């Protein structure tokens, strides 16, 4: 097992709030790592450290190191736009652009300089197939993304992220706005995606974490309480706080 992401002593403050505290974690390649924990524990903030989306928020201070493929993504030599191409992201609420289905998926390719129309439509098709959406939309690629159902929109957002050929895909509670059927489709999709991508998923749905992830991290109040193989976390948690959370003593 290779570690794709290695994080050492990561600290993050928003203004005076110390949101993430001394986090050390290594995320394995081509597996699903779930980050779970109660609301406000810093899960999403942690996830956004991995593609530097926190840079967009003012008065953020960050220290420690985040290595992806052994390169520190916070060093000055990193091109942040290439980083975000390599580390894709899918958000909590489906957020397609107000453009056609095709244009949504083609967007990333175009901004990264792909001009050839043939290449673009090839890659759009591949991304839509990989996101298990192609068969549902192949006849209406030019209709608006907002004509799709919520679950389809979320898979479209996944296709959009896949189109630029990332190596890592971050999911920020991707199923929380979806109905159970769409949600289970999404989980199937994640299972398939891990063959090719390193996946980090934030969730506060314990069953979901247990079902789909290989490794699970438990975060509380900005601290990494426990990180282990998922079956170990769920069957024999080492830390009392993890056990209390899993047995529903708080949440």
């Amino acid at each position, binding site marked *: 097992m290779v570690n794709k992401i290695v994080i050492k002593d990561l600290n993050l403050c928003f203004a005076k709030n110390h949101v993430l505290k001394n986090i050390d974690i290594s995320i394995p390649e081509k597996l699903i790592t779930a980050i779970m924990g109660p609301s406000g524990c810093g899960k999403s903030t942690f996830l956004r450290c991995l593609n530097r989306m926190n840079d967009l928020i003012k008065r953020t201070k960050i220290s420690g190191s985040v290595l992806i493929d052994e390169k520190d993504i916070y060093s000055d030599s990193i091109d942040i*736009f290439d980083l975000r191409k390599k580390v894709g992201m899918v958000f909590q609420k489906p957020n397609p652009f107000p453009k056609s289905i095709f244009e949504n998926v083609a967007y*990333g390719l175009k*901004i*990264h300089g792909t001009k050839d129309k043939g290449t673009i439509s090839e890659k759009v098709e591949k991304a839509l197939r990989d996101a298990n959406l192609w068969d549902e939309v192949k006849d209406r690629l030019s209709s608006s993304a907002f004509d799709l159902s919520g679950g389809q929109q979320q898979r479209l957002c996944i296709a959009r992220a896949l189109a630029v050929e990332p190596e890592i895909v971050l999911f920020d509670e991707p199923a929380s706005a979806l109905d159970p059927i769409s949600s289970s489709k999404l989980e199937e999709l994640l299972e398939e995606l891990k063959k090719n991508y390193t996946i980090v998923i934030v969730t506060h749905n314990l069953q979901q974490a247990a079902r789909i992830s290989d490794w699970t991290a438990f975060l509380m109040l900005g601290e990494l309480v426990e990180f282990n193989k998922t079956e170990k976390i769920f069957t024999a948690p080492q830390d009392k706080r993890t056990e209390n959370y899993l047995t529903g003593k708080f949440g």
Partner: protein
Amino acid sequence: MRRLKQTFGFTLLRLSVFIVFLSLLSLVVFISLKGFKVLSLSFLLEFPRRGMTKGGIFPAIIGTFLLSTGAILFALPLGVLAAVYLKEYAGARKWVKIIRIGINNLAGVPSVVFGLFGLAIFVKLFGFGVSVLSGSLTLGILILPVIIRASEEAINSVPSSFKEASFALGATKWQTIRKVVLPTALPGILTGAILSIGRAAGETAPILFTAATFYTRHLPESPFREVMALPYHIYALITEGTKPEFQVPIAYGTALVLLLLVFAVNFVAIIIRFRMRRKRKW
């Protein structure tokens, strides 16, 4: 007693609406009745004749069209770019607030002051003379605050989740603005722009010293020529006419044409806004 107060309150509200509606309606009806007698196709398509006692208002229609088109060509790009900068780049610094207050105050400056400014700057200093160009630029500055404010509001209403999605794909800020923010804000920006075209078309004072002329026998051959314009035509006919029995009806006809033009322009804006609301699903 409470019930009585409520009845009184409601009556007051109804009365206010009624008065507002009535004054608007009587304005339209009055202008239409007075103006519609002279209205005809030849009135729209002919030059004025015999010291403005006969003929049509064709050059004034063309002049108003040129002036408002010129104003929007100048003010729209400038206003949109300024709004993008204020919203997306400037942040919340102190001098940005001062600029914004300045822009809002500019919207309240009397239009004749813009006219004087245009005379001093465009006509004299830049040497454009009394011309379509000077008038367009003056009108452009007049509508600039409206366009900036409408654009800022339109940009503001673009959900931040769209921007986040774009950044997360590795887009630069400029790419995000150009390909996501502006296209999404476009209908709102256009609505503001079209409404301000109507505003520019109806203004008299800003073109009084900068562009308008009482009478010309030709359409302007270049942007450096003066033009006739609808609002100024009305003003000139009423104040300088020597044969009011012929000229006053023509003035009302001109007013009606101007009114219809402005209504038509606003109607287009309403349609765009309506279609935008229907299409919008976020």
